[in-house]
Protein backbone atom coordinates (compact mmCIF):
# COMPACT_ATOMS: atom_id res chain seq x y z
CA UNK A 1 0.00 0.00 0.00
CA UNK A 2 2.98 2.25 0.68
CA UNK A 3 4.13 2.16 -2.94
CA UNK A 4 0.60 3.10 -3.96
CA UNK A 5 0.74 6.22 -1.82
CA UNK A 6 4.18 7.11 -3.14
CA UNK A 7 3.24 6.45 -6.74
CA UNK A 8 0.11 8.53 -6.44
CA UNK A 9 1.85 11.53 -4.91
CA UNK A 10 0.42 14.87 -5.95
CA UNK A 11 3.17 15.56 -8.45
CA UNK A 12 2.55 12.27 -10.27
CA UNK A 13 -1.21 12.61 -10.14
CA UNK A 14 -0.95 16.12 -11.54
CA UNK A 15 1.22 14.82 -14.37
CA UNK A 16 -1.32 12.08 -15.09
CA UNK A 17 -4.17 14.58 -15.08
CA UNK A 18 -2.26 16.86 -17.45
CA UNK A 19 -2.02 13.90 -19.79
CA UNK A 20 -5.68 13.14 -19.27
CA UNK A 21 -6.54 16.69 -20.29
CA UNK A 22 -4.68 16.12 -23.56
CA UNK A 23 -6.61 12.87 -24.02
CA UNK A 24 -9.90 14.67 -23.47
CA UNK A 25 -8.99 17.62 -25.71
CA UNK A 26 -7.89 15.40 -28.58
CA UNK A 27 -11.02 13.27 -28.10
CA UNK A 28 -13.34 16.26 -28.02
CA UNK A 29 -11.88 17.76 -31.18
CA UNK A 30 -12.06 14.42 -32.99
CA UNK A 31 -15.60 13.78 -31.79
CA UNK A 32 -16.84 17.10 -33.17
CA UNK A 33 -15.04 16.77 -36.51
CA UNK A 34 -15.90 13.11 -37.05
CA UNK A 35 -19.55 13.63 -36.12
CA UNK A 36 -20.01 16.42 -38.67
CA UNK A 37 -17.98 14.69 -41.37
CA UNK A 38 -19.56 11.31 -40.67
CA UNK A 39 -23.11 12.65 -40.86
CA UNK A 40 -22.43 14.34 -44.20
CA UNK A 41 -20.78 11.21 -45.61
CA UNK A 42 -23.55 8.99 -44.27
CA UNK A 43 -26.22 11.11 -45.96
CA UNK A 44 -24.25 11.17 -49.22
CA UNK A 45 -24.10 7.40 -49.03
CA UNK A 46 -27.81 7.12 -48.33
CA UNK A 47 -29.19 9.44 -51.00
CA UNK A 48 -27.37 7.58 -53.81
CA UNK A 49 -26.01 10.33 -56.02
CA UNK A 50 -24.70 8.57 -59.14
CA UNK A 51 -20.98 7.71 -58.91
CA UNK A 52 -20.37 10.00 -55.93
CA UNK A 53 -22.17 7.75 -53.44
CA UNK A 54 -20.52 4.63 -54.82
CA UNK A 55 -17.05 6.12 -54.62
CA UNK A 56 -17.66 7.58 -51.14
CA UNK A 57 -18.99 4.18 -50.07
CA UNK A 58 -15.92 2.38 -51.34
CA UNK A 59 -13.54 4.78 -49.59
CA UNK A 60 -15.53 4.44 -46.36
CA UNK A 61 -15.33 0.64 -46.63
CA UNK A 62 -11.57 0.77 -47.06
CA UNK A 63 -11.05 3.08 -44.09
CA UNK A 64 -13.35 1.01 -41.89
CA UNK A 65 -11.40 -2.12 -42.68
CA UNK A 66 -7.94 -0.75 -41.87
CA UNK A 67 -6.45 -0.61 -38.38
CA UNK A 68 -6.54 2.86 -36.85
CA UNK A 69 -2.88 2.46 -35.97
CA UNK A 70 -2.06 2.17 -39.67
CA UNK A 71 -3.96 5.39 -40.45
CA UNK A 72 -2.10 7.11 -37.64
CA UNK A 73 1.23 6.00 -39.13
CA UNK A 74 0.10 7.13 -42.57
CA UNK A 75 -0.76 10.59 -41.33
CA UNK A 76 2.20 11.05 -39.00
CA UNK A 77 5.03 9.29 -40.87
CA UNK A 78 3.69 9.01 -44.42
CA UNK A 79 2.37 12.49 -45.12
CA UNK A 80 5.69 14.28 -44.39
CA UNK A 81 7.05 12.48 -47.45
CA UNK A 82 4.52 14.42 -49.48
CA UNK A 83 5.51 17.64 -47.81
CA UNK A 84 2.78 17.77 -45.16
CA UNK A 85 4.44 17.94 -41.77
CA UNK A 86 2.17 17.62 -38.74
CA UNK A 87 2.75 17.64 -35.00
CA UNK A 88 1.55 14.74 -32.87
CA UNK A 89 -1.63 16.49 -31.73
CA UNK A 90 -2.92 17.39 -35.18
CA UNK A 91 -1.83 14.06 -36.67
CA UNK A 92 -3.81 12.22 -33.98
CA UNK A 93 -6.87 14.41 -34.46
CA UNK A 94 -6.76 13.97 -38.24
CA UNK A 95 -6.30 10.18 -38.13
CA UNK A 96 -8.98 9.71 -35.47
CA UNK A 97 -11.42 12.01 -37.26
CA UNK A 98 -11.05 10.21 -40.59
CA UNK A 99 -11.38 6.77 -39.03
CA UNK A 100 -14.34 7.58 -36.80
CA UNK A 101 -16.08 9.59 -39.53
CA UNK A 102 -16.13 6.44 -41.66
CA UNK A 103 -17.61 4.48 -38.74
CA UNK A 104 -20.22 7.15 -38.04
CA UNK A 105 -21.15 7.41 -41.72
CA UNK A 106 -22.13 3.72 -41.62
CA UNK A 107 -24.17 4.26 -38.45
CA UNK A 108 -25.94 7.27 -39.97
CA UNK A 109 -26.71 5.40 -43.16
CA UNK A 110 -28.19 2.39 -41.41
CA UNK A 111 -30.02 4.70 -38.97
CA UNK A 112 -31.75 6.45 -41.86
CA UNK A 113 -32.42 3.09 -43.50
CA UNK A 114 -34.14 1.91 -40.34
CA UNK A 115 -36.80 4.63 -40.59
CA UNK A 116 -39.73 3.10 -42.42
CA UNK A 117 -40.15 4.09 -46.08
CA UNK A 118 -43.76 5.12 -45.51
CA UNK A 119 -42.55 8.12 -43.52
CA UNK A 120 -40.81 9.62 -46.52
CA UNK A 121 -43.70 8.80 -48.83
CA UNK A 122 -46.25 10.34 -46.46
CA UNK A 123 -44.14 13.47 -46.02
CA UNK A 124 -43.74 13.84 -49.78
CA UNK A 125 -47.46 13.23 -50.29
CA UNK A 126 -48.21 16.07 -47.88
CA UNK A 127 -46.32 18.42 -50.16
CA UNK A 128 -42.91 18.57 -48.48
CA UNK A 129 -39.85 18.70 -50.66
CA UNK A 130 -37.27 15.89 -50.34
CA UNK A 131 -34.98 18.10 -48.24
CA UNK A 132 -37.82 19.21 -45.95
CA UNK A 133 -38.95 15.64 -45.43
CA UNK A 134 -35.37 14.62 -44.69
CA UNK A 135 -34.71 17.42 -42.19
CA UNK A 136 -38.09 17.49 -40.41
CA UNK A 137 -39.32 13.91 -40.62
CA UNK A 138 -36.59 11.36 -41.34
CA UNK A 139 -33.48 12.69 -39.57
CA UNK A 140 -35.14 13.39 -36.18
CA UNK A 141 -36.41 9.80 -36.08
CA UNK A 142 -33.14 8.35 -37.36
CA UNK A 143 -31.16 10.31 -34.77
CA UNK A 144 -33.01 8.59 -31.94
CA UNK A 145 -31.98 5.20 -33.26
CA UNK A 146 -28.42 6.35 -33.81
CA UNK A 147 -27.67 7.68 -30.34
CA UNK A 148 -26.55 4.41 -28.66
CA UNK A 149 -24.24 3.23 -31.48
CA UNK A 150 -22.79 6.71 -31.99
CA UNK A 151 -22.01 7.13 -28.32
CA UNK A 152 -20.34 3.74 -28.16
CA UNK A 153 -18.30 4.84 -31.17
CA UNK A 154 -17.24 7.93 -29.23
CA UNK A 155 -16.27 5.70 -26.33
CA UNK A 156 -14.00 3.68 -28.58
CA UNK A 157 -12.60 6.94 -29.91
CA UNK A 158 -11.61 7.99 -26.41
CA UNK A 159 -10.01 4.60 -25.81
CA UNK A 160 -8.23 4.74 -29.16
CA UNK A 161 -6.48 8.00 -28.31
CA UNK A 162 -4.16 5.79 -26.24
CA UNK A 163 -2.69 4.46 -29.50
CA UNK A 164 -1.12 7.87 -30.02
CA UNK A 165 1.51 6.99 -27.40
CA UNK A 166 3.34 5.43 -30.34
CA UNK A 167 3.82 8.86 -31.92
CA UNK A 168 4.74 10.30 -28.50
CA UNK A 169 1.59 12.32 -27.96
CA UNK A 170 1.80 13.32 -24.26
CA UNK A 171 -1.61 11.87 -23.35
CA UNK A 172 -2.44 9.97 -20.21
CA UNK A 173 -1.17 6.49 -21.18
CA UNK A 174 2.10 7.97 -22.37
CA UNK A 175 2.54 10.00 -19.19
CA UNK A 176 1.79 6.95 -17.06
CA UNK A 177 4.50 5.02 -18.88
CA UNK A 178 6.96 7.85 -18.26
CA UNK A 179 6.16 7.79 -14.55
CA UNK A 180 6.69 4.08 -14.08
CA UNK A 181 9.73 4.34 -16.33
CA UNK A 182 11.38 6.20 -13.47
CA UNK A 183 10.40 3.70 -10.81
CA UNK A 184 9.33 0.20 -11.78
CA UNK A 185 7.41 -0.25 -8.54
CA UNK A 186 4.92 2.36 -9.70
CA UNK A 187 3.82 0.11 -12.53
CA UNK A 188 0.72 -1.39 -10.90
CA UNK A 189 -0.50 1.87 -9.32
CA UNK A 190 -0.12 3.61 -12.67
CA UNK A 191 -2.15 1.00 -14.52
CA UNK A 192 -4.83 1.05 -11.84
CA UNK A 193 -4.99 4.84 -12.10
CA UNK A 194 -5.18 4.64 -15.90
CA UNK A 195 -7.96 2.08 -15.77
CA UNK A 196 -9.92 4.20 -13.29
CA UNK A 197 -9.57 7.39 -15.35
CA UNK A 198 -10.68 5.80 -18.61
CA UNK A 199 -13.41 3.81 -16.94
CA UNK A 200 -15.00 6.79 -15.19
CA UNK A 201 -15.25 8.92 -18.32
CA UNK A 202 -16.42 6.13 -20.61
CA UNK A 203 -18.86 4.63 -18.14
CA UNK A 204 -20.44 8.03 -17.50
CA UNK A 205 -20.77 8.51 -21.25
CA UNK A 206 -22.48 5.17 -21.68
CA UNK A 207 -24.85 5.89 -18.77
CA UNK A 208 -25.69 9.26 -20.32
CA UNK A 209 -26.40 7.64 -23.65
CA UNK A 210 -28.70 5.08 -22.06
CA UNK A 211 -30.60 7.82 -20.25
CA UNK A 212 -30.87 9.95 -23.38
CA UNK A 213 -32.06 7.00 -25.45
CA UNK A 214 -34.73 6.24 -22.88
CA UNK A 215 -35.96 9.83 -22.68
CA UNK A 216 -36.10 10.27 -26.43
CA UNK A 217 -37.76 6.93 -27.09
CA UNK A 218 -41.10 7.26 -28.81
Amino acid sequence: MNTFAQALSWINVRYLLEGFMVTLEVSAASIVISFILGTILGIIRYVKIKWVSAIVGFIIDIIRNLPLLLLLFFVYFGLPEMGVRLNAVSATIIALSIFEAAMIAEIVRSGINAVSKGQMEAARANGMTYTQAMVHIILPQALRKMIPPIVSQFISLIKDTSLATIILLPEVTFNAQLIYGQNVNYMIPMYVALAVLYFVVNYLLSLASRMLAKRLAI
Partner: protein
Amino acid sequence: MLSIVSSNWGTLVSAFLVTLECSILGLIGSCVLGTAFALMEISPIKWVNAIGRIYVEVVRNIPLLVITMIFYVVIPKYVLPISGFAAGTIGLTIYTSAFIAETVRAGIEAISTGQMEGARSVGLTYFQAMTHIIFPQAIKVTIPPLGNQFINLVKNSSVLAFVSGFDLMYQGKLIAAATLDTFQTYFIVGIFYLIITMPLSYLMRYLEKRWQTA
Protein backbone atom coordinates in the same frame (compact mmCIF):
# COMPACT_ATOMS: atom_id res chain seq x y z
CA MET B 1 6.55 -0.23 -54.55
CA LEU B 2 7.15 -3.60 -56.19
CA SER B 3 10.76 -3.58 -55.03
CA ILE B 4 9.62 -3.18 -51.42
CA VAL B 5 7.24 -6.10 -51.83
CA SER B 6 9.75 -8.38 -53.56
CA SER B 7 12.65 -7.68 -51.23
CA ASN B 8 10.51 -8.11 -48.12
CA TRP B 9 8.15 -10.81 -49.34
CA GLY B 10 9.18 -13.42 -46.77
CA THR B 11 8.89 -10.98 -43.87
CA LEU B 12 5.53 -9.71 -45.05
CA VAL B 13 4.08 -13.18 -45.44
CA SER B 14 5.29 -14.35 -42.04
CA ALA B 15 3.94 -11.14 -40.50
CA PHE B 16 0.63 -11.71 -42.24
CA LEU B 17 0.50 -15.22 -40.78
CA VAL B 18 1.29 -13.89 -37.30
CA THR B 19 -1.57 -11.40 -37.60
CA LEU B 20 -3.87 -14.17 -38.78
CA GLU B 21 -2.74 -16.54 -36.03
CA CYS B 22 -3.23 -13.92 -33.33
CA SER B 23 -6.67 -13.07 -34.70
CA ILE B 24 -7.84 -16.67 -34.89
CA LEU B 25 -6.53 -17.55 -31.43
CA GLY B 26 -8.12 -14.35 -30.16
CA LEU B 27 -11.42 -15.20 -31.81
CA ILE B 28 -11.58 -18.70 -30.34
CA GLY B 29 -10.55 -17.51 -26.88
CA SER B 30 -12.86 -14.52 -26.83
CA CYS B 31 -15.82 -16.53 -28.12
CA VAL B 32 -15.44 -19.04 -25.29
CA LEU B 33 -14.82 -16.36 -22.68
CA GLY B 34 -17.47 -14.04 -24.12
CA THR B 35 -20.16 -16.72 -24.15
CA ALA B 36 -19.33 -17.67 -20.58
CA PHE B 37 -19.69 -14.08 -19.42
CA ALA B 38 -22.87 -13.61 -21.47
CA LEU B 39 -24.38 -16.60 -19.68
CA MET B 40 -23.32 -15.08 -16.37
CA GLU B 41 -24.91 -11.79 -17.36
CA ILE B 42 -28.30 -13.37 -17.94
CA SER B 43 -28.00 -15.81 -15.07
CA PRO B 44 -30.87 -15.75 -12.57
CA ILE B 45 -28.37 -16.02 -9.70
CA LYS B 46 -27.67 -12.50 -8.43
CA TRP B 47 -23.94 -12.66 -7.58
CA VAL B 48 -23.05 -14.53 -10.79
CA ASN B 49 -24.97 -11.89 -12.66
CA ALA B 50 -23.06 -9.11 -10.89
CA ILE B 51 -19.66 -10.62 -11.74
CA GLY B 52 -20.60 -10.89 -15.39
CA ARG B 53 -21.88 -7.33 -15.59
CA ILE B 54 -18.88 -5.84 -13.78
CA TYR B 55 -16.41 -7.73 -15.99
CA VAL B 56 -18.08 -6.56 -19.18
CA GLU B 57 -18.46 -2.94 -18.09
CA VAL B 58 -14.88 -2.66 -16.82
CA VAL B 59 -13.20 -4.32 -19.79
CA ARG B 60 -15.32 -2.47 -22.34
CA ASN B 61 -14.44 0.92 -20.96
CA ILE B 62 -10.66 0.52 -20.78
CA PRO B 63 -8.42 0.90 -23.84
CA LEU B 64 -7.10 -2.27 -25.45
CA LEU B 65 -3.60 -0.83 -25.20
CA VAL B 66 -3.84 -0.53 -21.42
CA ILE B 67 -5.02 -4.14 -21.07
CA THR B 68 -2.31 -5.38 -23.40
CA MET B 69 0.43 -3.40 -21.65
CA ILE B 70 -0.63 -4.87 -18.32
CA PHE B 71 0.07 -8.32 -19.75
CA TYR B 72 3.26 -7.12 -21.41
CA VAL B 73 4.91 -5.34 -18.49
CA VAL B 74 3.10 -6.13 -15.24
CA ILE B 75 2.55 -9.88 -15.60
CA PRO B 76 6.16 -10.68 -16.67
CA LYS B 77 7.50 -8.67 -13.75
CA TYR B 78 5.34 -10.13 -10.99
CA VAL B 79 3.91 -13.44 -12.24
CA LEU B 80 5.62 -15.21 -15.12
CA PRO B 81 7.58 -14.15 -18.18
CA ILE B 82 5.49 -14.30 -21.38
CA SER B 83 6.36 -13.22 -24.90
CA GLY B 84 5.03 -10.12 -26.60
CA PHE B 85 2.91 -12.24 -28.90
CA ALA B 86 1.32 -14.06 -25.95
CA ALA B 87 0.74 -10.80 -24.06
CA GLY B 88 -0.82 -9.22 -27.12
CA THR B 89 -3.05 -12.20 -27.85
CA ILE B 90 -4.22 -12.50 -24.24
CA GLY B 91 -4.92 -8.76 -24.06
CA LEU B 92 -6.83 -8.90 -27.32
CA THR B 93 -8.80 -11.96 -26.17
CA ILE B 94 -9.87 -10.35 -22.92
CA TYR B 95 -10.75 -7.04 -24.57
CA THR B 96 -12.81 -8.67 -27.33
CA SER B 97 -14.52 -11.11 -24.96
CA ALA B 98 -16.39 -8.22 -23.33
CA PHE B 99 -17.79 -7.14 -26.68
CA ILE B 100 -18.67 -10.68 -27.65
CA ALA B 101 -20.40 -11.15 -24.30
CA GLU B 102 -22.59 -8.16 -25.12
CA THR B 103 -23.31 -9.50 -28.61
CA VAL B 104 -24.22 -12.96 -27.36
CA ARG B 105 -26.34 -11.55 -24.53
CA ALA B 106 -28.25 -9.36 -26.98
CA GLY B 107 -28.73 -12.39 -29.23
CA ILE B 108 -30.10 -14.51 -26.42
CA GLU B 109 -32.36 -11.73 -25.16
CA ALA B 110 -33.73 -11.27 -28.67
CA ILE B 111 -35.26 -14.74 -28.36
CA SER B 112 -38.65 -14.31 -26.76
CA THR B 113 -38.93 -15.36 -23.12
CA GLY B 114 -41.86 -17.57 -24.09
CA GLN B 115 -39.35 -19.93 -25.70
CA MET B 116 -37.60 -20.52 -22.40
CA GLU B 117 -40.86 -20.83 -20.50
CA GLY B 118 -42.24 -23.22 -23.07
CA ALA B 119 -39.10 -25.36 -22.95
CA ARG B 120 -39.09 -25.42 -19.16
CA SER B 121 -42.78 -26.30 -18.97
CA VAL B 122 -42.20 -29.26 -21.28
CA GLY B 123 -39.73 -30.53 -18.69
CA LEU B 124 -36.33 -29.47 -20.05
CA THR B 125 -33.79 -28.26 -17.49
CA TYR B 126 -32.48 -24.68 -17.71
CA PHE B 127 -29.26 -26.00 -19.27
CA GLN B 128 -31.08 -28.21 -21.79
CA ALA B 129 -33.40 -25.39 -22.77
CA MET B 130 -30.38 -23.15 -23.32
CA THR B 131 -28.48 -25.61 -25.52
CA HIS B 132 -31.39 -27.06 -27.49
CA ILE B 133 -33.87 -24.21 -27.76
CA ILE B 134 -32.33 -20.82 -27.12
CA PHE B 135 -28.78 -21.15 -28.53
CA PRO B 136 -29.71 -22.48 -31.97
CA GLN B 137 -32.07 -19.53 -32.47
CA ALA B 138 -29.71 -16.98 -30.96
CA ILE B 139 -26.83 -18.00 -33.25
CA LYS B 140 -28.57 -16.59 -36.31
CA VAL B 141 -29.04 -13.20 -34.70
CA THR B 142 -25.49 -13.28 -33.38
CA ILE B 143 -23.44 -14.30 -36.43
CA PRO B 144 -23.36 -10.95 -38.31
CA PRO B 145 -22.33 -8.83 -35.28
CA LEU B 146 -19.90 -11.57 -34.30
CA GLY B 147 -18.33 -11.31 -37.74
CA ASN B 148 -17.98 -7.58 -37.24
CA GLN B 149 -16.24 -8.27 -33.95
CA PHE B 150 -13.84 -10.55 -35.78
CA ILE B 151 -13.05 -7.74 -38.23
CA ASN B 152 -12.36 -5.48 -35.26
CA LEU B 153 -10.20 -8.20 -33.80
CA VAL B 154 -8.07 -8.40 -36.94
CA LYS B 155 -7.68 -4.63 -36.96
CA ASN B 156 -6.98 -4.48 -33.25
CA SER B 157 -4.30 -7.15 -33.56
CA SER B 158 -2.13 -4.26 -34.75
CA VAL B 159 -1.67 -3.57 -31.06
CA LEU B 160 0.98 -6.31 -31.25
CA ALA B 161 3.21 -3.61 -32.74
CA PHE B 162 3.43 -2.10 -29.25
CA VAL B 163 4.66 -5.34 -27.69
CA SER B 164 7.04 -6.50 -30.45
CA GLY B 165 4.65 -9.22 -31.56
CA PHE B 166 6.15 -9.53 -35.09
CA ASP B 167 2.77 -8.92 -36.73
CA LEU B 168 2.06 -6.90 -39.90
CA MET B 169 2.13 -3.55 -38.15
CA TYR B 170 5.37 -4.28 -36.31
CA GLN B 171 7.19 -5.56 -39.38
CA GLY B 172 5.74 -2.70 -41.42
CA LYS B 173 7.31 -0.27 -38.98
CA LEU B 174 10.69 -1.99 -39.37
CA ILE B 175 10.46 -2.13 -43.17
CA ALA B 176 9.46 1.53 -43.27
CA ALA B 177 12.46 2.40 -41.14
CA ALA B 178 14.80 0.35 -43.33
CA THR B 179 13.56 1.49 -46.74
CA LEU B 180 12.78 5.08 -45.66
CA ASP B 181 9.75 4.75 -47.91
CA THR B 182 7.06 5.13 -45.30
CA PHE B 183 4.10 5.89 -47.50
CA GLN B 184 4.49 2.94 -49.84
CA THR B 185 5.36 0.51 -47.06
CA TYR B 186 2.21 1.33 -45.11
CA PHE B 187 0.22 1.18 -48.33
CA ILE B 188 1.39 -2.41 -48.78
CA VAL B 189 0.70 -3.26 -45.14
CA GLY B 190 -2.78 -1.79 -45.59
CA ILE B 191 -3.45 -4.07 -48.53
CA PHE B 192 -2.49 -7.10 -46.45
CA TYR B 193 -5.02 -6.09 -43.80
CA LEU B 194 -7.70 -5.49 -46.42
CA ILE B 195 -7.16 -9.01 -47.79
CA ILE B 196 -8.55 -10.33 -44.51
CA THR B 197 -11.06 -7.67 -43.53
CA MET B 198 -12.71 -6.58 -46.80
CA PRO B 199 -14.16 -9.96 -47.87
CA LEU B 200 -15.32 -10.57 -44.30
CA SER B 201 -17.10 -7.25 -44.07
CA TYR B 202 -18.91 -7.81 -47.38
CA LEU B 203 -19.86 -11.33 -46.29
CA MET B 204 -21.30 -10.00 -43.03
CA ARG B 205 -23.28 -7.33 -44.83
CA TYR B 206 -24.68 -10.01 -47.15
CA LEU B 207 -25.63 -12.30 -44.25
CA GLU B 208 -27.23 -9.43 -42.36
CA LYS B 209 -29.41 -8.60 -45.35
CA ARG B 210 -30.32 -12.22 -46.06
CA TRP B 211 -31.21 -13.18 -42.53
CA GLN B 212 -33.08 -9.97 -41.85
CA THR B 213 -35.75 -10.85 -44.38
CA ALA B 214 -35.84 -14.53 -43.45
